[in-house]
Structure formats: structure tokens, C-alpha cells
């Protein structure tokens, strides 16, 4: 467990940005259908969300491979830190690249929605003591 815990904590840190800018996309699409009355903008918004899903899916697939490689490296007792760092580089780079794409799309989505619609789609988080988001 300790060794698994070290691995888990490393992996949490190696991929922190993309998940943080990935909304719950299915829910977002559902709320767009419900809350965006203007058809043209609704279609545009749904297209953007589909693009976000595609980015998130591709990232998850790529990440799985990189995580497997890193896990293999971490499992060996004698793996030097430099090898761990080398194996982690793709994770960091992929995470940042995906986060950048998702941010582009996030701002595209914003450009087709009004502030009131945004508020309905992404209500302010009511964080509990652990910092986890609670959904209204």
C-alpha cells in the first residue's frame, strides 16, 4: 500500500490540469438542451461540448498508456529517480496539451453563452470541508 500510495500521489500530481478544466460533459450537454433557448447558439454550444468530449477521450486513452509505462518503472525498486522523471514527462506534457485544448474550447463555449446561461450550466461550487464540489 505504501508503495502504491506513493505511486497514486505521484500520478495525481502528474495529471492535475486537464481534469480540473473538464466539466461533467454529459451533464453540461443536458443542461444546454434544457437551458439554452436560442436554437442556433444551443447547437453551437453542443458542438463545442462534443469537441471537449473528444479531447477528454483522446487524452484519457493516451494517458492510460503513459500511466502503464510509469507504473512499470515505479514498481521496480532500483529504478533511479531520473528514469521516473523521464517516464513522467509524457504525462505532464499530455496533461498540459489537453488542458490547453480544453481551455480553448471552454472559452469558445463561453462566447456562445450568456452570463445567465453560464450560471445555470456551471453553478458556483458549494465546496464542503474536503473541497469536493457539491452539485445543486
Amino acid at each position, binding site marked *: *500500500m*505504501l*508503495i*502504491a*500510495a*506513493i*505511486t*497514486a*500521489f*505521484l*500520478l*495525481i*500530481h*502528474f*495529471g*492535475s*490540469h*486537464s*481534469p*480540473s*478544466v*473538464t*466539466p*461533467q460533459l454529459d451533464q453540461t450537454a443536458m443542461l444546454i438542451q434544457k437551458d439554452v433557448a436560442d436554437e442556433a447558439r444551443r447547437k453551437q454550444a453542443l458542438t463545442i461540448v462534443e469537441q471537449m468530449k473528444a479531447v477528454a477521450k483522446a487524452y*484519457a486513452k493516451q*494517458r*492510460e498508456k503513459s*500511466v502503464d509505462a510509469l*507504473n512499470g518503472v515505479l514498481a521496480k*525498486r*532500483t529504478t533511479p*529517480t531520473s528514469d*521516473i*522523471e523521464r517516464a*513522467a514527462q509524457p504525462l505532464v506534457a499530455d496533461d*498540459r496539451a489537453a*488542458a490547453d485544448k480544453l*481551455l480553448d474550447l*471552454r*472559452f469558445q463555449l*463561453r462566447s456562445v453563452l450568456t*452570463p445567465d446561461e*453560464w*450560471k445555470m450550466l*456551471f*453553478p*458556483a*461550487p458549494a*465546496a464542503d470541508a*474536503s*473541497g*469536493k*464540489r457539491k452539485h445543486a
Partner: protein
Amino acid sequence: MICSPPWLAGLIALALGLATTAGCSSKPDLTPEQQAQADVAAYEAQIRRTIPEPARADQLIALTNEFQRLATESIASVRGYRAKAAALNSNYDATRQDYEALFTQQDVAREAFIRKASALRERMVAFTSDSEWEELKKARLRALDADLEELLP
């Protein structure tokens, strides 16, 4: 708005999976503090069973305690980051610069964590043999279970 990737769920499930059997022996009437003490004692006992030399076992237990402190700091950092990211996601007026600043801040925290965790890992490697390392993969650090679970949505 915030979600954890599926690979993390798998890894944590693996990490926590070892808990199932041992967890069944927990006495339900222990206070959380007593349970925590019992967990630490059980973990230390497992290290001492794996590493028969007291001096080396002491070193490894000390390193484990150090890692627990580092993990606790890390959890706080990740929680804070996620809360800030969630606030940005909800903010219609958030700018790209706001996100960049948050990413940079978290990158610095990540680098610091990785540097410290890698150093601890290297020291653990120095105090163990291959077979002991394999055996310690089975040892559980229950105090971190809840924290790891908290990182899941």
C-alpha cells in the same frame, strides 16, 4: 465540474483493495483516534515482520511517517487547487490568465511534491532489498486510505 480520470480510480482501487481483508478485522467500537493508532501499529508491525533488523525497520517507519506528512500536505494542496479551478470554471468572467496563474501555482506545488516524494522513495530503496520491497507492496498505510478516496469524485 471537477472529475478524476478513470486511471486514478483503478489505481486507488488497487491500493485500497488490499484493505478489504484486513479491514474486516477492525473492531467497530474503536474511536477514530484509536482506529488510527491501531492502523499505525499494524503497519509498523508489518514493516518489522518484513524487515527483521530493528534499526532498518525503525528507519523505514520513520520514512513512512515522513511520507504520511508529505501526503497530508499534498492532499491539502490538491484540494485547494481543485476548489480554485472549480471557482474559475463557474466564473463567466474568468480569463485565460487566471487559469494560467492557477496552473503555474499548481506546477510549482507538483514539482515540490515530486522532489520530496522521489527523495523519500530513494531512501526507502536504500533501506530495503528487492524481496522486502515486494513484500512491502502488500503493507497497508490505512491512514492514507480516506485521503486517497477523497481525491475521487
